[in-house]
């Protein structure tokens, strides 16, 4: 995909806060990113780093209250999704933007058969009649590799295995030929051999359908295999963003660098001892006024305690939110 192509989805300065009994939680702080046609953007980060809330915010899926999407724009199809009426948003959701969530058992309705659940968006968004929708549903199940698709349309979710349920969820997300697919940890609950099946399926589908994909995971191995670009989140912010090979070969943010050193692999050198990132991930009780990674960072200095680093452009589509320049070993200019 050419770098100059206009983004299909463009998110700027997204900010989401939760009101809780013990005060505010600043879950998403000034997150900006864009998605180009046909590309796969990987989003990584520890649990609680704001990956899901970011995506739910832009789809308008968070209950308000407690959630409060305080700012930002989400441009899709010449519209700002944060500023459209409920009906327009519903039409986009499950229509031109498909989504898949982590746990396929809670996302599928146990009381309806799988056929009904695939047909629903087809009838709602594409105006198909029952017969057309049934034919398309069968096609979709075949597309995601479920054998004996026609018969299985009548089956209920509990009659499918975890991997097959996740395939069904993907079929539903793909039902209306979306331009954008948002997948939130779609393989985290699955075994590796089943995950491998889903990842292969995803590669096939992208080649066939050419949609743009946002793939959220905490598994850097998965990202390495499927992403074009990667966005690393920490404390509700984007701390680094780069083309996938650059992120792995030349990570710049201290968190990304530490994370890559922490994970053991099944190939390559086996470290006698794992590198550890000491301490815990932060709980964002306030809007960040200092670097969120400060307490765990081994190169932190004075400035990190009094200012929140912006994303510094490092060239070639790479940026990192850090006052320290890992290339020179010096603080960046003030």
């Amino acid at each position, binding site marked *: 995909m050419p770098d100059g192509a206009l983004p299909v989805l463009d998110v700027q300065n997204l900010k989401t806060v939760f009101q809780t009994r013990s005060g505010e939680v600043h879950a998403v702080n000034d997150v900006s990113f864009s998605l180009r046609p046909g590309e796969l953007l990987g989003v990584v980060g*520890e649990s609680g780093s704001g990956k899901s809330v970011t995506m739910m915010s832009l789809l308008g899926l968070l209950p308000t209250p407690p959630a409060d999407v305080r700012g930002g724009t989400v441009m899709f199809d010449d519209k700002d999704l944060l500023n459209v009426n409920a009906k327009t948003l519903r039409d986009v959701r499950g229509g031109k933007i498909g989504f898949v969530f982590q746990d396929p058992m809670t996302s599928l309705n146990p009381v309806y058969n799988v056929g009904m659940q695939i047909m629903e968006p087809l009838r709602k968004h594409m105006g198909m009649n029952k017969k057309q929708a049934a034919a398309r549903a069968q096609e979709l199940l075949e597309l995601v590799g479920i054998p004996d698709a026609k018969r299985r349309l009548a089956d209920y979710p509990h009659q499918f295995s975890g991997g097959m349920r996740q395939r069904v969820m993907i079929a539903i997300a793909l039902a209306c030929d979306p331009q954008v697919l948002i997948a939130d940890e779609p393989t985290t609950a699955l075994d590796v051999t*089943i995950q491998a099946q889903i990842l292969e399926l995803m590669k096939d589908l992208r080649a066939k359908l050419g949609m743009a994909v946002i793939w959220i995971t905490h598994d850097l*191995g998965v990202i390495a*295999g499927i992403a074009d670009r990667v966005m690393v989140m920490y404390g509700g912010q984007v701390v680094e963003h780069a083309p996938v090979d650059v992120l792995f070969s030349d990570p710049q943010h201290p968190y990304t660098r530490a994370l890559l050193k922490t994970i053991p692999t*099944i190939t390559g050198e086996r470290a006698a001892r*794992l590198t550890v990132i000491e301490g815990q991930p932060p709980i964002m009780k306030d809007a960040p006024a200092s670097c969120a990674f400060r307490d765990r960072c081994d190169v932190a200095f004075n400035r990190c305690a009094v200012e929140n680093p912006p994303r510094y452009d490092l060239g070639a589509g790479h940026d990192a939110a850090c006052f320290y320049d890992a290339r020179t070993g010096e603080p960046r200019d003030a």
Partner: protein
Amino acid sequence: MLDTENTPLVSVRDLKMHFPIHAGLLRRRVGEVKAVDGVSFDVIEGETLGLVGESGCGKSTCGRAVLRLYDITSGEITIDGDEIGDTSQAALRTKRPAMQMVFQDPQASLNPRMTVEAIIKEPLDEHTKLSELEKREKVGELMDAVGLNRQFAKRYPQAFSGGQRQRIGIARALALNPKFIVCDEPIAALDVSIQAQVVNLLEDLQEQFGLTYLFISHDLSMVRHIATRVAVMYLGKIVELAPREALYAEPLHPYTKALLSAVPDPDPSLAKASNRIVLQGDVPSPANPPKGCNFCTRCPSVMDICKTTEPTYFEVQPGRFTACHLYENNNDTAE
């Protein structure tokens, strides 16, 4: 016998754990789940034996059965010279201190109404005659050992993070100076950056107290890091057992090959070039395993004999065990 050179602390032979399936109004027994169906292995003193495999293959059941948290269907279990396979639960009580378990979900395995001190002290109350003062001191030492601040002794588990809760579980498991600890997915519920902290702790404690671990996990990368030897389970059976380096460098069993090839590599150049073995279909139900080899419904190398005859588990090379017909021709010399 299986391991000749080193002394096994734990020795398991042909262990079976079948759970009955009841159905209908009269709850009649209609079948059984063969969760663990004839496994044999040794755990050498001081080593970490990794036990890997996909969800539902029987790892946890195996770990719990070895500690006799179940009354097993059949088999022999020797721990530190004592045969405990058919020992009564009452008689097991005196042996319990030597063998402990650390669980996956640090949240669910800690009583929310007990303070950290009470949780760690409980096994001391049950199994020792120490004075209250001695017990408190011991709890303090244990908290030091697992890296928990002693000042937190009076807090409740909810006040701790996942990684800290796992430290509480580990401190409790250590209270009675065990020799053997079954760690059942101790890091699965933790974040990547916290996983490394807990794994390093387990390694330190092993060295400090001379512990022997059975480390259950579905994370093959982490097992490569922590284990001395690795056993691979599929549908209630061990299909391969080998020293760590050999297993990862040159897996023998077709299932091990597929499993390793499915692990995503965090290196974009490798990941994109890989010719991954993608297994078709799902794991069959342990209530109704296939005839012949358990893996025959998904095996890329399946042969006719595999669908009729179960392969035997044998030592195919010194220290390497597998159960697969592909390796049975050179069986004659191996045993």
